[in-house]
């Protein structure tokens, strides 16, 4: 009887092993095609929305499919990782690019399985580059909807806008031989040290958040020329509609208003020798943007306290002594004036010319600190915001002069 029970128990255990070993959802690494970067262009240089599939000139037969609905509007390109035993292919590339044309992103991606021997895996997607031509035709939310909705795609995917074609970025091989998609994503990670790059709060998650909050997103601008990729400036959106570009100086001002910079370089002509420059390197700041309501008037104050070093002094340092407190005070005042100019430049470009509240900085403050007033003005915020004055106060503290006077 005991033997029978033991036999039964062993059989049960063996049967359980059959059920529990392995995994229903397993996918081997070598059975996946890792998508590292996505480029979204218009389907063809001459193609306009509404043109039907068969009428599109210059679309390669292998990059299209019969489409019962919609137009051959977009060209979607994917950068895929080459998984090879020896690490690198003979042509020194680690990635390759496939493309498709259509209207729905998901439909194009599924059709691209016809070009791929393995399933496309978006879990490690690093960057999405959108061509300006696409954004002139359609809203950002329409282009991004699939990427926001899909469960594989992470929130921290970088988003860039380019004035030219987006696909060449995917074909670009960095001189360092880094993997293309990783390289493109990583150049914006250094935004904390580069005041010209709007890297904070510009990824897919934040952009989706701004679109849901009816705020105005901004995205870093990326350009490729002479085999060099450069990130700088921003593409500016009114809700999800592309408005234009703001330059690096405006980005610096915008970051100073929002207080998102971690480090910055501020350059001014030397006070006593304007032919030469002196550079302030920021390493700590205390920035407070506050809304105020006085009757029917709304205004903002921006108080900036910046602490840093003299990073570079091109003036004859025998003529000027950076150990001299009076000279340092003169520099501090001059740097503070320059920071004010930077802030006012950003305000002029974004608030007055483009009428855009970049990443909803001002709206968020109003909603947080003046909720009653916000309830009254939120429906006309675009008009109200364009008239709101900004009072700026800047103090600069030079705490170190470097290792030389």
């Amino acid at each position, binding site marked *: 009887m005991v033997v029978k029970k033991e036999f039964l128990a062993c059989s049960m255990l063996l049967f359980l092993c059959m059920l529990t070993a392995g995994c*229903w959802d397993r996918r081997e690494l070598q059975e996946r095609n890792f998508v590292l970067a996505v480029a979204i262009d218009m389907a063809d240089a001459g193609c306009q929305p509404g043109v039907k599939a068969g009428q599109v000139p210059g679309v390669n037969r292998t990059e299209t499919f019969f489409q019962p609905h919609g137009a051959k509007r977009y060209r979607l390109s994917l950068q895929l990782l080459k998984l090879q035993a020896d690490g690198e292919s003979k042509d020194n590339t680690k990635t390759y690019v496939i493309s498709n044309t259509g209207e729905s992103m998901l439909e194009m991606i599924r059709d691209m399985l016809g070009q791929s021997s393995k399933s496309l895996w978006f*879990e490690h997607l690093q960057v999405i580059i959108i061509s300006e031509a696409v954004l002139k035709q359609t809203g950002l939310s329409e282009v991004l909807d699939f990427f926001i909705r899909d*469960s594989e795609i992470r*929130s921290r995917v970088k988003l860039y806008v380019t004035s030219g074609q987006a696909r060449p970025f995917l074909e670009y091989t960095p001189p360092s031989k880094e993997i293309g998609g990783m390289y493109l994503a990583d150049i914006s990670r250094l935004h904390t040290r580069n005041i010209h790059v709007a890297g904070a709060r510009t990824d897919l998650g934040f952009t989706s958040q701004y679109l849901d909050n009816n705020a105005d997103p901004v995205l870093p601008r990326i350009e490729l020329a002479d085999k060099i990729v450069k990130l700088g400036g921003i593409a500016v959106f009114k809700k999800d509609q592309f408005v234009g570009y703001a330059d690096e100086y405006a980005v610096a001002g915008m970051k100073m208003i929002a207080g998102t910079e971690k480090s910055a370089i501020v350059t001014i002509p030397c006070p006593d020798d304007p032919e030469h420059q002196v550079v302030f390197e920021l390493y700590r700041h205390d920035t407070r943007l506050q809304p105020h309501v006085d009757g029917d008037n709304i205004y903002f104050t921006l108080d900036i306290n910046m602490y840093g070093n003299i990073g570079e002094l091109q003036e004859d340092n025998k003529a000027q002594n950076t150990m001299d407190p009076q000279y340092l005070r003169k520099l501090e005042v001059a740097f503070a004036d320059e920071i004010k100019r930077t802030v006012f430049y950003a305000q002029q470009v974004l608030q007055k010319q483009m009428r855009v509240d970049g990443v909803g900085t001002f709206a968020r403050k109003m909603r*947080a600190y003046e*909720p*009653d007033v916000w309830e009254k003005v939120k429906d006309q915020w675009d008009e109200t915001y364009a008239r709101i004055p900004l009072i700026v106060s800047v103090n600069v503290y030079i705490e170190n002069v470097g290792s030389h006077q």
Partner: protein
Amino acid sequence: MTNLEAKKYMSPLQLAIVVFVTCVGGQIMLSPRELLESAGQSAWLAIIIGGVAFYVSVCLMLKLGKEYPDETIVDYAPKIFGRWGGGLVIGWFNALFFLQIIEIFYGVGKIITFYMFDRTPPEVVILSLLVVCTYCALQEWGTILRIQQILFFVAYSMLIIVWMTSLLNLQLENLLPLWPRDTKLVISAGFSTWPMYSGYECVLLLLPMVYRHASLSKLVKTMGGAFGCLTLIFLLVIIIIIGVLTVDHGKSMPYPALTVIRSVELPGTFIERLENYLLLAWIPIVFDTLAAMMFFMGQVCMRQYRQVDHRPWVLLWVPIIYVSSLLLDDQQLYNTVNKYTLWAGLSFSFGVMPLSLLVSWWQKWRARKDGG
């Protein structure tokens, strides 16, 4: 030989752990979106209001239980409301567990399929979890209690550690303004947090195991501790969701808590896909809630029909639970069931319980008067 697992007594602290573990289940992932929709920026306040309100309800339950020592609600409900009325209250009580169980099974099936096992049909996920929960619910209370105590320390600490990584993305300004513009709305949203706190009704079944070891005031204090911890954990969830996503963004997604954890990046580490770690901690939490609730359902039926073994009843409920969970795969039906479950839960806590207590006092007063 004595069955050591057939536990007859518990300490008040053990009861508090059971209440905490039974309440915190699937709903910490399933409920936040509804809460953001109803309470908006003041969701944190709604959670505190809910915590206080349901704690008051538990205190009424404790008081009622003290009126009938050594008896559970199944035994004293007919004494208060008569045979049919009592039967209705017992059925209502059991229906609360049933509705919660099927909603949690359905929600867990959806979440696990969407975020973890996208090739596995939800029916298989639900079935697997149901098998494990049934196995646990078939045990004696001593075993279940021990599992709950172990998971209280293991799963919750893991869940909290993983969840706290989302503090990296927290923006305090998203939490402002703190105070609500519409107080009535927040109060009503406070009561709509019942699905998060539900499960505390189990004290009506478990009190006979505790009352001889503790005074009413001690029980009230211990339950206060349990509800304090519940409120704290729900606050932690909702504050981080709002702080990371904002209210408008959070309510635009079905499971904002998972979106929050998916946004966490730990640069320079090999750890990624943190939502999987969170789900791995969450599954045992859901398991112990469901197992306990299934056990309670079996116990109610066993006592109602004067039997000595709850296990046949648990097994009888299994196919009903499975089929009902699958039937919820219709958004309209799910919303309707959700709404009626909320009303059933609130009216039980704030209608049936005070009424039971009043009728019981009146009966005792009348008995004293007749006797005197």
